[in-house]
């Protein structure tokens, strides 16, 4: 459950040459491990009609939430993208935020 996020901590910033103290300070920032919602809930068919589900992946600005934040696996992110784009065509999901 509470596994360490693989690339947690300051991403990119804490290179090997940096002061140790800094790294140690960041250490206790454990994040919950992200799992793909669709794998976990066994949703095979990401449907463009399921607005409620899709809206969980479009924050206020209405951009599609990237994988690195949602934790969705590549396969499902791809299908999710297609579903969101279809739903957008039908004005069920916005293209842009307010």
């Amino acid at each position, binding site marked *: 459950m509470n596994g360490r996020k693989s690339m947690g901590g300051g991403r990119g910033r804490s290179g090997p040459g940096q002061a140790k103290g800094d790294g140690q300070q960041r250490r206790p920032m454990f994040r919950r491990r992200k799992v793909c919602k669709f794998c976990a809930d066994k949703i*095979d068919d990401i449907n463009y*009609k399921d607005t409620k589900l899709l809206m969980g992946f479009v*924050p206020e600005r209405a951009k599609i939430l990237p994988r690195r934040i949602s934790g969705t696996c590549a396969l499902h992110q791809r299908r999710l993208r297609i579903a969101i784009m279809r739903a957008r065509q*039908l004005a069920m999901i916005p293209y842009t935020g307010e």
Partner: protein
Amino acid sequence: MNRKYELVYIVSPDATEDQVAELHGQVEAVVQRMGGQLEKTENWGRRRLAYEIGRHKEGNYVLDVISGSGELMKEIERRLKVYDTVIRQLIVRVDEAELVSERRRSTRTESSRRRRVARGLPADRQPGEGQRSEFDDDRDDRFEVGEDLR
């Protein structure tokens, strides 16, 4: 070639019930004439649009599930484009996607059954056993949106 398609079209909110019905009749007629089959029709009624289309803020959504040829869908699309009461339409082919998810589902249940039998349990999950069902939704495992989005 029989394929399955989903057609969703949005009828302008100014259109009367009769106009919506007439439009549906048109679709049905084309389907019939070109040897297709109308498998299901759903009228979602009036819904708010996520953005304005033209000057409309609402629309009547109609979903049709049609099996037939690509030619048929082409014809329907062409016809719907003619009507100015139709403000948006989408045609999606669904048979292949359905097949794939069906297959995935069956392999999954099968393998879970196999594993259960190997553990000496009855093949199917008993009521009240195991994790929560998909219906209780109190476990909010969604990502935190506070993180950097860029």
